[in-house]
């Protein structure tokens, strides 16, 4: 196959290289030797192989990324300038959708809930770390315990949402049975605008903590025992040991945990949809859910307005994306 489409090559170095390669092939395949002088030409591809191959491999990914990521983002920006029900004609309205957003209490509720999600969801990182530290020991059957702790991450978010909905049920739920047992009044977590978002986040933290735990468990395997020994000799133990010796070594794991948790918080959609459907009266909506509601749900016919919400959400995500890319860039440069 290396012999096909050969063209003239004058560069002696390349010819030499090629001849060498040819010899290798000839040896390997034990092919009938042909006079080397015939093979003086090489294909255009061959000459530019080093430069082109990476792009060839990248092409499918780039294509898909363009079609399924970049193009929809551009399109969202475009659609957000129209009033459109997704069925009929579009009507250009300029910035009107954004102006309306600024004056929409439901938008601010969603935005506030997004911020609450971002901060509260980060609790999964310390929680995951402590469970990982707790499980990072050699006891008989520890693998079983580790799998059990990891279990919530394996089950679907929909199931997690359903389980927690039943747990919170104001009449029959376990939570209120327990609260009643210790003499506390029943609370309707998912029916009360004050608690509802925290209630859903608690449900989300269950699998997310498990995810962070597994990241830290792998991270803990890579902690250098010599450093720990050295720290011990210097008299470090307990919190000091954790804070100054272990956690710095877990930095890569922390970074990944941070990334997945932020991403998880921003795409918190399924739990809300299952547990409250955005209610009571829209108090548990986040931007992604509100966007779905106005643009795509049963009563939603405002694609332009939905796109405007999507653009705002994208802008928030962009801050994190830029930060992540920047830290990764710095990291690579450092090495």
């Amino acid at each position: 196959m290396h012999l096909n489409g050969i063209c003239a090559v004058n560069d002696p170095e390349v010819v030499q290289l090629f001849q060498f390669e040819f010899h290798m092939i000839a040896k390997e395949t034990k092919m009938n030797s042909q006079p080397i002088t015939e093979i003086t030409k090489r294909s255009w591809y061959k000459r530019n192989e080093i430069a082109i191959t990476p792009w060839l491999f990248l092409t499918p990914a780039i294509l898909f990324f363009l079609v399924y990521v970049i193009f929809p983002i551009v399109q969202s920006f475009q659609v957000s300038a129209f009033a459109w029900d997704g069925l009929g004609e579009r009507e250009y309205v300029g910035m009107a959708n954004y102006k309306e957003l600024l004056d929409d209490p439901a938008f601010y509720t969603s935005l506030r809930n997004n911020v609450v999600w971002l901060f509260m969801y980060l609790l999964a990182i310390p929680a995951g770390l402590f469970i990982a530290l707790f499980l990072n020991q050699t006891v008989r059957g520890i693998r079983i315990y580790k799998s059990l702790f990891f279990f919530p991450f394996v089950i679907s978010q929909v199931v997690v949402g359903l389980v927690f909905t039943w747990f919170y049920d104001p009449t029959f739920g376990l939570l209120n049975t327990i609260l009643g047992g210790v003499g506390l009044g029943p609370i309707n977590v998912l029916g009360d605008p004050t608690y509802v978002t925290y209630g859903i986040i608690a449900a989300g933290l269950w699998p997310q903590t498990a995810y962070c735990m597994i990241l830290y468990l792998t991270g803990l395997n890579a902690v250098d025992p010599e450093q720990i020994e050295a720290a011990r000799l210097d008299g470090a133990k307990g919190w000091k040991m954790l804070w100054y010796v272990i956690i710095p070594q877990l930095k890569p794991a922390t970074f990944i945990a941070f990334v997945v948790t932020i991403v998880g918080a921003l795409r918190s959609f399924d739990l809300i949809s299952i547990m409250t459907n955005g209610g009571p009266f829209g108090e548990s909506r986040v931007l992604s859910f509100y966007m779905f509601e106005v643009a795509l749900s049963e009563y939603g016919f405002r694609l332009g307005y939905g796109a405007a919400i999507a653009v705002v959400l994208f802008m928030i995500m962009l801050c994190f994306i830029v930060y992540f890319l920047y830290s990764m860039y710095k990291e690579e440069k450092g090495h």
Partner: protein
Amino acid sequence: MSMVKTTVAALAATMTMSGVASAESLKGDLNIFLDTSNPAPRAVMEQLIGEFQGMNPDLKIETTIIDREAYKTQIRNFLTANAPDVATWYAANRMKPYVKAGLFEDLSDMWAEPEIAANLASTKGAMTIDGKQWGVPYTYYQWGIYYRKDIFAELGLSEPTNWAEEKANCAKIVASGRACYSIGSKYLWTAGGWFDYLNMRTNGFDFHMQLAAGEVSWEDDRVKATFANWRELIDMGGFLENHQSYSWQEALPFVVNGSAASYLIGNFAVAPLREAGLTDDQLDFYQFPAITEGVALAEDAPTDTFHIPSGASNKANAKEFLRFMVSADAQTKMNAGDALGQLPVNAKSAVDDDKFLNEGFTMLSSNSPGGVAQFFDRDFPAEMAKVGMEGLQEFMVRPDNLDAILARLEKARGRIYK
């Protein structure tokens, strides 16, 4: 483009004519999309399609049944991208977005046929937008108060006919440690039913329709009067607590176990209540009582419909299928107690001999002089319905927020009805 359209139209016209002219068996394809996904409705639809197939052995029928909830969001995709020949949907404003976008075929010609014009006349208004009819109805059902007869007997109550009696009953029920009304408002629309009735009883059908059409302000004193009536029931603790956390199905057990005495809901709730063990001696029905004296009683009776998408490729076959489905015989079978368990629209159909169907049929045909509404989310435009029902739910939980809620709805009205 336009040439293609006219050719298709001409072709469709000739096909229709030939279809009418000869009663011969149909040929070609027929692609039907249904949202009747519950077991009994599904079975009866499949049975009727089987009969239609038997009448037209050469017709290639393909039926797709989609989950009822999923259908509501999928419809706009398949109507634009891959239109079937027949699709189910709902009457009144609920079909407006698709009519306005030109996605439903104008069926006025079918409504001019004597068979349909005479027998389906009761729902013609609900099928009309811009003076044309866009579909045909196959079923409708009454709304009203389903109550526990045994609990009423225990407390010495009788079916109320006016607001004072309703409140007096409720006071006694609350005093016995029960809730008067079960409701699950997690998915909002059940609260719309309460508003429909309270507003139609307080201000009448015409006012309700004006509000739905965006002609009246939400901050109007008459609307406030409706909410004031509603608030009387809320303040006396009439409604099931924590209803915002339940779906309508999840609110059924409270009626079954007797911790709520009644339930304002559609007739579709009867089947699950019976399945849960309530007998007809325990469960009964009464019409929502009058509130303002002199206001003609009006009812909610949502109508489910068949449509032909304008992108359909076998419109003549589809029309023939619709003629079959609205025929008196088919509607009788479809709405039987063990099938849909609802009311047939065709005036010549027989109503199945079922306590609730009989009561509902009598109520709608002779005791609803004010008019028949579809339902909150079918009479109000989709966006207004969504914002509105959210406000209604909030009002039920936080009645003190009423002014803010009404201001919000009024602002939405200003934007939605242009």
